[in-house]
């Protein structure tokens, strides 16, 4: 049995009893003249683990940045609604204060900023040591180190996941959380997602790896800037495995 087995319940149907936490409707995003999201619709129910699958270049990270409110990723059309409130015009930090956060695919490094302090940003009351242990980092070895270039890529990503845990968000967007992380820390990732779920967080798990997404409650497949398949994870995965392209060229190649 793998570390993933039994973690998620893999419900086949959307839980209609749960409130919608995030709703994206008709979202259109253009970057440097290229349409990245093209009238995208997506709903996340409160408390669900939602896998977002797509080939490289299909717009997964752009979607994450658009939800988070990154300056260069403001949609030109459509709406993004969080807990019933439109957040399209809110800057990033205000969205974060509503309870949205993002674990970056390639998180930034900070000279002189200690890991303990990094995890306490936003006056988090979480137990820093516990958050570090959950991502496989010994607090005695890491809490006083800086979030700088002395950390390996895998260590930095683990710190990022610990920071998301510490923030206790309503919506945690994990952008390719396994990229650059050694196999050992896949277990740590499982623990992180389990902890987030237990704490009531909704998780948008962005990945191009089917084995990672397999443990989501529900999943969606992004292709050519649109959701082309959504629902039961197993069915979406089956659809995803039959995709034609390995790298998305911006067109829908797989409906």
């Amino acid at each position: 049995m793998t570390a993933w087995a039994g973690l998620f319940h893999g419900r086949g149907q959307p839980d209609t009893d749960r409130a919608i936490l995030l709703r994206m409707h008709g979202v259109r995003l253009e970057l440097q003249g290229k349409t990245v999201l093209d009238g995208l619709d997506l709903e996340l129910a409160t408390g669900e683990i939602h896998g977002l699958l797509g080939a490289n270049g299909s717009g997964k990270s752009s979607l994450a940045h658009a939800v988070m409110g990154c300056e260069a990723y403001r949609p030109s059309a459509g709406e993004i609604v969080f807990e019933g409130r439109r957040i399209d015009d809110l800057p990033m930090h205000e969205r974060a204060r509503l309870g949205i956060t993002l674990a970056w695919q390639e998180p930034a490094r900070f000279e002189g900023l200690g890991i303990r302090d990094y995890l306490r940003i936003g006056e988090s009351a979480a137990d820093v040591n516990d958050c570090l242990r959950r991502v496989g980092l010994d607090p005695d070895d890491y809490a006083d180190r800086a979030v700088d270039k002395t950390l390996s890529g895998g260590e930095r990503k683990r710190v990022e996941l610990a920071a998301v845990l510490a923030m206790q968000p309503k919506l945690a967007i994990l952008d390719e959380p396994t990229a650059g992380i050694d196999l050992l820390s896949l277990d740590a990732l499982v623990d992180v997602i389990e902890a987030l779920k237990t704490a009531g967080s909704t998780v948008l798990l962005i990945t191009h790896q089917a084995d990672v997404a397999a443990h989501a409650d529900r999943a969606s497949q992004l292709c050519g800037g649109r959701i082309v398949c959504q629902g039961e994870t197993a069915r979406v995965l089956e659809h995803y495995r039959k995709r034609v392209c390995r790298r998305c060229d911006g067109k829908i190649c797989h409906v």
Partner: protein
Amino acid sequence: MSELKPIFDLFSTAGWAPPPIPEAAHLVAYGHQLASLKSLPGVRVEASTSDTGIVAEVVIAAGMRVDQPIHLCFGLYQQFGLQNVRLALTLEPGAQATLWSHCLFAVPLAARHTMLGEFHLGEGAQLRHQEAHYHGASGDIEVLPHARVTLEKGARYLADFSLVEGRVGRLDIDYTVDVGEAAVAELTSRIYGFGTDSIRLREALILNGPGAKGLLKSRVAVRDEARAEVFGIMEGNAAGARGHVDCMEIVRDRAEVSAVPEVRVRHPQAKVTHEAAIGSVDSTQLETLMARGLAPDEAVDLIVRGMLA
């Protein structure tokens, strides 16, 4: 010790905890007035004063390992003042010490402080030199620390200059270090300028001895109308010499920074490298912190403070 009260008051103004000066070897001076002086066995501290300045000498005996930091405290508590210091510092072979230099100019509306240093570290000697400045809020302060440092075989000189609170005024740092065989020199400077502050930072490591090693690290942040010029000079003149210049400068508002690296190699087996990053706050860093709920100003402040920590 009543003669130390003014310097402790200046520490308090700067928001710093007063160090244990009375017990340590030390020299405390206000303007050209010598307030307190203390030698300890193996650590000789001498000074003379005149209307034109202070001439001080610190000698640490051969093989002496000084556990408690030696304190040099210079300050002014008049509204206008001048302080000229000539300092000769010698670590005899095998001596080890930590030197804390505190320069406190919190009170003056206008002042000028100059320091001409001659530091000599004998064979195998080690000095950790931490120099912290606080110049108050006036901005009409001129501070000019200049020094020549000589490192004999196997000596180590680790220096850390910090001016990150209060105004800078006009700062002109000029240090040249002659690094001998298998000796090591590391100079780190952290400076935060704003208003109309003017910063000139010139540091040169001349790696003259075989196997000499050097690191120049500058961290300068400026905002408002502040100006900074950073000259990092590294010369590799002997076999096995290794040097690295690492500059990072953050610029905001209408401030301006120029960084002039000068790396020179005169021996085929020497190697000198350089890296520099100058610009506004990195947008990825900014967004990472904003995604944690920090407003842009809070995020920038945290990034700058971290860089200068």
